[in-house]
């Protein structure tokens, strides 16, 4: 699972991850809500979400974490993520383009790990989800 990952010696502090632009469709959000058995109106239906006071259906925070993990996995290699911490700052509305971004903030020679800043931003550049992650490298 961890073969073919990024090499520690090839990584420099300041290296960037992405950005990866992604059109997040309502159907993809519904598929996620179904997969985690959270098929609630706020995640599946605009009208139902508005009845809860939201502007329309929203993306689950957990799905945003999952999408950020795909960014980290794609950069470091599958199975390299050790820790992910996120703060949900704004509503992630589907049927829009989002960008997944990151940067290496620190390397640790002793543990061969790298600390990352990661974030999800709107097409307008607003950071909707921010976080940090730790990955193990070869």
């Amino acid at each position, binding site marked *: *699972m961890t073969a073919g990952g990024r090499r520690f010696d090839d990584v420099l502090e300041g290296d960037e991850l992405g950005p990866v632009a*992604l059109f997040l469709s309502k159907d*993809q959000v519904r*598929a*996620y809500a*179904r*997969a*985690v*058995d*959270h098929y609630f109106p706020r995640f599946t239906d605009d009208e139902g979400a508005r009845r809860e006071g939201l502007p329309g259906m929203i993306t689950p*925070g*957990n*799905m945003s*974490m*999952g*999408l950020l*993990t*795909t960014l980290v*996995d794609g950069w470091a290699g*599958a*199975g390299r*993520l*050790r*820790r*992910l*911490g*996120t*703060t*949900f700052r704004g509503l992630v509305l589907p049927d829009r383009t989002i960008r997944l971004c990151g940067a290496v903030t620190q390397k640790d020679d002793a543990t061969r790990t790298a600390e990352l800043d990661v974030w999800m931003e709107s097409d307008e550049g607003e950071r909707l989800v921010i*976080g940090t992650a730790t990955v193990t490298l070869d």
Partner: protein
Amino acid sequence: MALEFDRSILGEEFDRTEHDPVAADELIAFARALGEASPCYIEPGPALVGHPTYCIRFRGGKFFPDNLPEGLRQRMSFDAGKDIELGVPVRAGDRITVVSTLHDLYEKTGRSGSMFFVVVRFTMTNQRGELVAIVDNRMMYRGQE
């Protein structure tokens, strides 16, 4: 409103829930919903593992302890974020046990006034007793007007 509570409730186990065995098609559906293409997450077989955030679909039988401070019990909370420490990956057939504790409770003052944060920790292990993940769920409550 200052939040007063007995700090001895921090760290107390308030729920323990064992989930049904994980099915391979659930692992795959989860990964596909995230647009994953890595074979280890989407191809059936012995190498299949759960996507790293698959673990956060597991919850306890109740989300908050009964002894949550009175001032918070009746108020609506918002999911402010999560911290995940990953252990071994989830595999098909695993039975995941979630032990819930109230990990922290604190107040912050922002531009919109005071906010209270309740951190509920889920410690997840598999049927072999291996640590799968520690997930800290940070719930935010706005202070009363």
